[in-house]
Each structure stands twice: as C-alpha cells, then as structure tokens.
C-alpha cells in the first residue's frame, strides 16, 4: 500500500523516569498492607484522589490519610484490546471509572468478572494489594 522509501535509523533512546513519591509514599505503603487510603485536608476537610501533599482547595499542606469505604457504581468503562508496548504481554483488560459512596471517583481495572457482565451502574468494591508482579496496586471487583 505505502511504498518503502530510503531512510536512516536514528541512535536509539531508552528512558526510564524516576518519579519522586516522597511526599505521598504512604499511599503505596498502605496498598502493600492491603489498605486503600487517600488524603484529606486537615484544614478544610477536602477529600482528594489521587492523594496530594498540598490541598488544591485551601492551599494548606497539613493532610491526613483516611481509609475509604470503597463501594461504588461503574460510571464509565472500556475493554482495552489494542494494548501499548508495556502491556503487550497481558491479555486484554477492562478499565472502569467508578463513582464511590465516599464522594470520589477512581479509575482502575475490574477483576473477577466476565467482560460481558460489566455495565454502567454495576455495583463494585475497591480492593488494595499487590499485583501478580508484586507491585502495589488497587482494583475493583463486582460487589
């Protein structure tokens, strides 16, 4: 379809970024212990996910870690069939954004359900722990 044209291969670049988690590392520490906690501002009470070190509502930096109830409903979902390079080795996965009774929304995979069962409005529960690769993570399961 498209012709092959003369070209030069560039020098390759491989980059792995070291992302600082110093100010919010407790998030992953709690996940490893099987707990899902996020941040609440001690000054104005704003509950935030993703967790933050600085409150976007009142600009205070005095935050506490609170455990979520984690129950909610699917607000949007998709089954990812065509996957990026770093997920090529995995089977297709389902991503949901769930609206939690805690007053937050969270994006994560849903596990333990057939793709055909997932729908908007489905009741789900948030879980925390380690992935098969041993990385701390979180996911939804049908409630």
């Amino acid at each position, binding site marked *: 379809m498209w012709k092959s044209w003369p070209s030069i291969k560039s020098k390759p670049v491989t980059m792995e970024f070291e992302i600082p988690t110093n100010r919010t590392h407790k998030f992953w520490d709690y996940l490893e212990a099987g707990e899902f906690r996020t941040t609440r501002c001690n000054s104005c009470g704003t509950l935030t996910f993703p967790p933050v070190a600085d409150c976007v509502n009142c600009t205070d930096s005095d935050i506490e870690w609170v455990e979520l109830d984690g129950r909610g409903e699917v607000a949007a979902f*998709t089954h990812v069939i065509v996957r990026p390079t770093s997920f090529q080795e995995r089977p297709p996965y389902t991503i949901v954004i769930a609206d939690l009774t805690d007053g937050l929304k969270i994006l994560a995979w849903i596990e333990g359900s057939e793709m055909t069962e997932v729908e908007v409005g489905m009741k789900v529960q948030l879980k925390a722990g380690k992935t098969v690769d041993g990385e701390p993570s979180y996911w939804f399961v049908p409630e």
Partner: protein
Amino acid sequence: MRKVAVIGVGHSKFGVRKDVNLSELTYEAVKPALEDATVSMPDIDFVAFATVGGMYEESLPAVVAAEYSGFTGAGLVRCEAACASGSAAFYTSYLNVASGMSDLSMAVGMEKMTEVDTPTMMEMIGRAGSYLWEFHNFGMTFPAYYALYASAHMAKYGTTEEDLAEVAIKAHKYGAMNPHARFQKETDMDQVLSSFLVAWPLKLYDCSPICDGSAAVILASEEKAKELGIDTPIWVKGVGHSSDTANLSKRSDFLGLQASVTASRKAYKMAGVGPGDLDVANVHDCFTIAELLAYEDLGFAERGKAAEMVREGETEVGGRLPVNVDGGLKAKGHPIGATGCSMIYELTKQLRDEADSRKRQVPLKNNLALAHNVGGTGHYCYVTILER
C-alpha cells in the same frame, strides 16, 4: 485589540509520509501559504510552530523546520496543547497581530507520527492524561479515554455502535473528495461494524489514523491585508479556550467535554453569534464518539440528540449545519500538531467559496464558520469563529 485576518493557508498531503522528513513536510504547507498570501519568508515577523513531538528525532523541531523554511531570525515559539496544539499556535499568532506586536504572523502545525511503530505510539499517547493514576498500572490508551465517554453516553442516551458508525461513514464520504485526506475512499456500515475492536465500543473504523502532515496559516492586521491587496480576507471573529482535569476520575460526568462547552461559549460571546448562525463547522472527531459529543457541547444539538443529527443528514453539505465536510480527523487524518491549522485551512477555503471539490463546497449564507479543536480528552479546548 486590532482586527486580524487569515490571508494565506497551505496544507500538505496527510498520510504515512515516509517520503519526506519533518522539515520537508512542514515546507509543503508553508510554501503554498506564502504564495496564497502573496508574501515571502522575510515578511513574516513571528512564527508559532505547533507540534506535540517526542515521537521523532528532533528535540527542537520548530528551529529545525524554521531554518529549512527560511524563517531564521523571526520570532519563534513552539506551542503544545496536545491535539489542540495547532489551535494554540493559531491563537498565539492571532494575539501577536491583534496586540500590534506584528503585522504578519504565521501559525504552522506539523506532526511526524510514523517514525516509531504503532505499539510505541500507543504507549506515548496512552500517557496523555495523568501517568501514575491512569497509565502505570492500568495501561490506558488514547482510544480507551474516548471509549469511557462512549460507554457513559450509550448508557444514558441509548447511543449505539451503529450511530458511531454513521459518523465514520460520513467522514469517509467527504474524505473521498479531499485530495489532502489520508483515506480517499468511502466505507459502509458492514465494514465499520466488522472492523477489529480497539477499545470497546470503539473499533478500528471509529478511530482517526496515526499519520504525518502539516498545515500553515498566515495572519495579518487589517492595514497589512489592505496593503497586500488581499481579495477575500477571512476575519478572526471570536476565540475561546478552556481546559479540564488531567485525571478523568476528577470529572463530574462522561457525557460531554466541559472544556468544549466553556471554550465555545467564550467564542460565541466574543463573536456575538450563536450556533444557529454558522454556515459550516469543523469539530474534533478524533474518534466517532467525539463528533457526537462535540455537537452537544457546542450547542448544535440538544443533549442526547447528536446521533439523530447525523442520521438525518443535517450535518452533510446541504444540511442544516455541514460538519467536517473535509473528511474530519477521522478520514482526512490526524497528525496531532497539524490538526488545528488544518481546520483553519479548510474553513478559510469554504468561506472563500474555494473548496477543492464543488461537491463539498457548502452554501454560504451568513459567511460564518467554527473550528473546534480538542487536546487530549477535553484536557485542552480551543474554539475559533471565522467570518468572511
């Protein structure tokens, strides 16, 4: 602020352009734009260069492309607003002239997306959100972002996969008439619905293609346009911009893009017009669902009624409001940095009554056109209203 006119436009062929490097590709749009405006390189005082970059060899693509095109010495900036980079560059050039800083300014958008393989490109643009919370553990992809919106729209309004397919069929119909388009052939319901699943409910034919391309726009002050004897200046009547959260989980719902609503209201207000006044529009259809969201966000259709507009042919040439009659991002192609300038190219041609095929020239009543350019998943939005 001074009145500003579009006085020259240029467009490259969009596609897998392994026959040219990024500078040569940029020049394919720059040269016809200069000829169209009857100016030469040294006349251009300022260049806003749009590209997302990071997917090809150059770190400073604006400088490399400007040198090749003969703009060395002009004021130069690279603009990035994801897939709305072209509009960010247009806006920058517009302000440059409107403010009185320059009399002649150029916005040029270029993207070279095929120098890396497709899974790597999926990896790059899958990170077009909030890396740690959407990509690292969950492998979001760009189609997946819009698929999330599609799932919510389908559940709330009963939008179907066939409705989405109708958008693709319309896009291909006009792409087939556009010599710059990547896909110059029509498609049908069976072909769209049987194409492979990318991120449910979006299939291959619901997605705009990864491709290479460039588009350029020259802007001038009223005095300069007069001095150059420009026959049909196309005036910048209104511009609006907005943005939204990086994390999709912080959005209130997934039924529309709030940034599109806000940006369009600002543009309508500045222009003193409403959606009912427009003769033609180009909206950001990176995926078929995005075109439906745009109709509702921009006030072309009531909430949940966009699919009806497409089904009833209201957005075809001869319909109530023709939309994306150049094939849109879907069939024309979406070299991300070039798209915003490509929209201005198309609407300028339409307002001049110079569409390349008479079959896709819209009838002009009010001489008003709207460009809607989204970056990411409503992360950025620019709306531009042009008037002949």
